[in-house]
């Protein structure tokens, strides 16, 4: 037995400081502990908290560089407005005057166009309080159009709740970690440290993703799949496990509600459809099964993208069938599901719920109503840089918009398209509750005083609601025009059956991590979740009757390359793009092209290129890399397209298409 003791760490600061604050980093959803040292209210140093269970004193580049954003020279710190987009902004006298003006203009739009002509985009950067405030305001206003990337279909929300998943600190106890479309090394670097620790401890790491990313480069076994095929890969894994009889028979019988046609549905799944649909061979899939088979503990970590495609529940079915659920060292760990399902507006009775037209679907935003008619909004309240992100499809619809309000911190694309600007407080400038990926609840103390007139999302919505006489629905509003975050989060914790019994004062007082739904008085749900049958067993996810190969669309011929955009390690929010320390690390304009594809198209490293889909295009600089396969293009820039063609500036898309066709021939 080797007695291994890691090197002693000697933390601390050498900088002069007059006060220090312990808080929680909110650049991603890991929830790392921070100690911030301030001198004359300016941040002098940022250190990790050594005894923090998850971060262990470590921080990523974003968690250190956030300090640059607070006193950035281009930070928006005062409200401003203009009548038309061609005019320059004029600074408002005060926040209150700006809200008065905005409320009046918003009222006029409602009178003319109706309540449902308002749409609200909530960027995670604006905080949980902004989203909850938006939901309440929209309910009172009478519009269903509130969008947030955290939104998940109800069915998906219920899935992981049924099987509490071990936090990332327990990954070291797993025998195997399977990461599917989850580039943890780029999105959650500190949590990825636990993956590497598990690997050092002997766990096998399998990574399945759409390109050869950083996470994949550390894997023991890796597979590149087609974009959008993650859940299908899970269905085929299940099929292979059942065919080889590798499932955990006792766990299967005890926890799954098996129907006679359950296994038949998997039998009917065609092996021939595997490769055209997922891009991987049967042999490669069987190889993954060999890694997983017989493991008493394994953790499956899935990315947020999978949540929005069919059969997302397969991962819970798979874990249950293999006996990995409800254990402290294994299970399903879906990323970005750490926010409890809060009933933000169920206490509001007027206007009547049935008078509000329903939305066509959950996030991501679809520009159509339930009857398939194109939506036409006249007013938008946008936070962060959502018009360059999840609201990209909305940009073309905003030509007729009469009023766009921006709640943010930097003069980004969304700000450029707005009529009224409200300066937002950064996460480090507001007190709040932080819900991590692990479903830990932590209180994040305000680190610095907000610059000038910057305010929290709760301040914004409370102030706006007051102007419409709805202050009783925002009772946290104080006489000084600010909202009380402690009272608000105490109320919010009571608005979810998963956090109903949580005591905010205990969360604020302790250094320990408190998880939901543990330590809570769980309320009986009014309706049973649809994935769980009445006898408490899980209804297994079944494969669809027919697998449609992805390469059948008509656009395939005209736009032969798949396009994907994912986050890069130095940027999580729009604000991170403005910090000099992180802005210089990675080229936001980079366009990854496989060297073979680039050779066909005559593109060289660093060339200015155009990536064009059927509706929109972006420009960037070519980065020839095998991280993408021959038929894929990747860039950090968002593009509202999944199929594209790429060409050098000066050439045309048709030229590029002809070259690719000639090569295929």
């Amino acid at each position, binding site marked *: 037995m*080797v007695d*291994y003791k*890691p*090197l*002693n*760490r*000697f*933390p*601390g*600061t*050498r900088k002069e400081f007059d006060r220090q604050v312990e808080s929680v980093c909110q650049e991603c959803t890991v929830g790392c502990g921070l100690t911030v040292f301030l001198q004359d209210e300016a941040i002098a*140093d*940022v*250190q*990790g908290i050594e005894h923090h269970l998850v*971060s262990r*004193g*470590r*921080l*990523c*580049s974003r*968690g*250190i*560089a956030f*300090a640059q954003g607070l006193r950035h020279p281009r930070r928006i710190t005062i409200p401003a407005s203009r009548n038309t987009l061609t005019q320059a902004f004029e600074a408002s006298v005060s926040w209150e005057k700006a809200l008065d003006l905005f409320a009046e203009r918003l009222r006029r739009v409602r009178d003319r166009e109706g309540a449902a002509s308002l749409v609200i985009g909530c960027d995670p950067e604006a905080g949980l309080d902004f989203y909850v405030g938006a939901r309440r305001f929209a309910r009172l206003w009478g519009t269903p159009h509130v969008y947030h990337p955290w939104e998940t279909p109800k069915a998906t929300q219920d899935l992981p709740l049924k099987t509490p998943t071990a936090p990332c600190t327990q990954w070291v106890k797993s*025998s*195997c970690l399977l990461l599917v479309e989850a580039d943890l*090394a*780029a999105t959650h*670097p*500190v949590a*990825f*440290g636990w993956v*590497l*620790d598990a690997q*050092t*401890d*002997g*766990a096998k790491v399998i990574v399945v993703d759409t390109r*050869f990313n*950083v*996470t994949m*480069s*550390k894997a023991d076994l890796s597979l590149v799949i087609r974009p959008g095929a993650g859940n299908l890969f899970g269905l085929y894994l299940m099929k292979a496990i059942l065919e080889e009889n590798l499932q955990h028979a006792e766990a299967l019988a005890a926890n799954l509600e098996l129907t006679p046609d359950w296994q038949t549905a998997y039998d009917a799944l065609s092996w021939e459809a595997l490769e055209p649909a997922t891009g991987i061979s049967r042999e490669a899939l069987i190889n993954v099964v060999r890694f997983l088979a017989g*493991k008493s*503990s394994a953790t499956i970590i899935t990315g947020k993208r999978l949540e929005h495609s069919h059969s997302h529940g397969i991962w819970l079915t798979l874990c249950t069938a293999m006996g990995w659920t409800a254990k402290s060292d294994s299970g399903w760990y879906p990323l970005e599901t750490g926010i409890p399902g809060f009933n933000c507006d169920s206490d509001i009775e007027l206007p009547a719920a049935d008078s509000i037209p329903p939305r066509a679907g959950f996030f991501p935003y679809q520009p159509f109503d339930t009857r398939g008619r194109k939506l036409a909004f006249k007013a938008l309240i946008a936070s962060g840089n959502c018009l360059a992100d999840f609201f990209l499809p909305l940009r073309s619809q905003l030509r007729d918009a009469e009023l766009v309000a921006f709640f943010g911190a930097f003069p980004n694309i969304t700000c450029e398209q707005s009529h009224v600007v409200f300066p937002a407080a950064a996460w480090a400038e507001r007190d709040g509750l932080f819900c991590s990926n692990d479903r830990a609840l932590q209180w994040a103390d305000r680190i610095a005083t907000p610059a000038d007139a910057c305010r929290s999302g709760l301040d914004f919505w409370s102030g706006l609601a007051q102007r419409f006489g709805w202050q009783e629905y925002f009772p946290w509003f104080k006489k000084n025009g600010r909202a009380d975050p402690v009272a608000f989060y105490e109320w919010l914790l009571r608005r979810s059956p998963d956090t109903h019994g949580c005591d905010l004062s205990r969360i604020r007082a302790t250094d320990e991590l408190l998880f939901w739904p543990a330590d809570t008085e769980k309320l009986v749900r009014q309706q049973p979740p649809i994935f769980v049958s009445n006898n408490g067993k899980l209804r297994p996810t079944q494969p669809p009757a027919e697998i449609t190969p992805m390469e059948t669309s008509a656009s395939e011929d005209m736009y032969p390359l798949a396009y994907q955009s994912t986050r890069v*390690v*130095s940027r999580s929010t729009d604000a991170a793009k403005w910090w*000099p*320390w*992180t*802005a*210089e*690390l990675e080229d936001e304009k980079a366009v990854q092209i496989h060297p073979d594809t680039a050779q066909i198209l005559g593109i060289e490293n660093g060339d200015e290129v155009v990536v064009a889909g059927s509706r929109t295009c972006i420009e960037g600089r070519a980065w020839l*890399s*095998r*991280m993408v396969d021959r038929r894929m293009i990747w860039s950090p820039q968002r593009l509202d397209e999944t199929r594209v063609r790429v060409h050098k500036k000066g050439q045309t898309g048709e030229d590029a298409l002809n070259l690719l066709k000639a090569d295929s021939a």
Partner: protein
Amino acid sequence: MNKQRKHALMIDSSRCIGCHSCGVACKMEHELPAGPRPVKVIQIGPLDPNGSLVMRFETVTCFHCDRPACVSACPTGAMQKRPDGLVFSEPSLCIGCQTCAVACPFGIPELNPAAGKIAKCDGCRDRVDRGLWPACALKCPTGCLSYGSPSRVVQDLRTREALTVVRSVAVR
């Protein structure tokens, strides 16, 4: 930590994920603007040597050479080597002539355009003198960077490698 005692920064590239945390930590510690990067992370690959892709990241910083060319070349005596081995540029003596940058075979010293003086890794000498770890090692999220006496660091690396081999053959 004793000022005369030598220390070593261990870089375990197998754990580097190219997150640039070390570089940003260094910049915050030394209050540097955009531009000079005393700690850099370089992506190598993906390469395709045997039909399967390989990619890794290398953390690059000053090697604090035994016989540093930058120290010999510096015309003002700003570039110095301490008894504990750390090579640093004394800002009060540096005139920003960048002779050290030319002399260094690894291209480590860079000009800090805001100060007009050389910026390079000084081993976080002010932190080390207070008994603290260098900022880059302390904040590294994956444990790629660690710090200690040369013998302890080597022992740690050996033990970790041995354990990795043992655990890879053990059945979990």
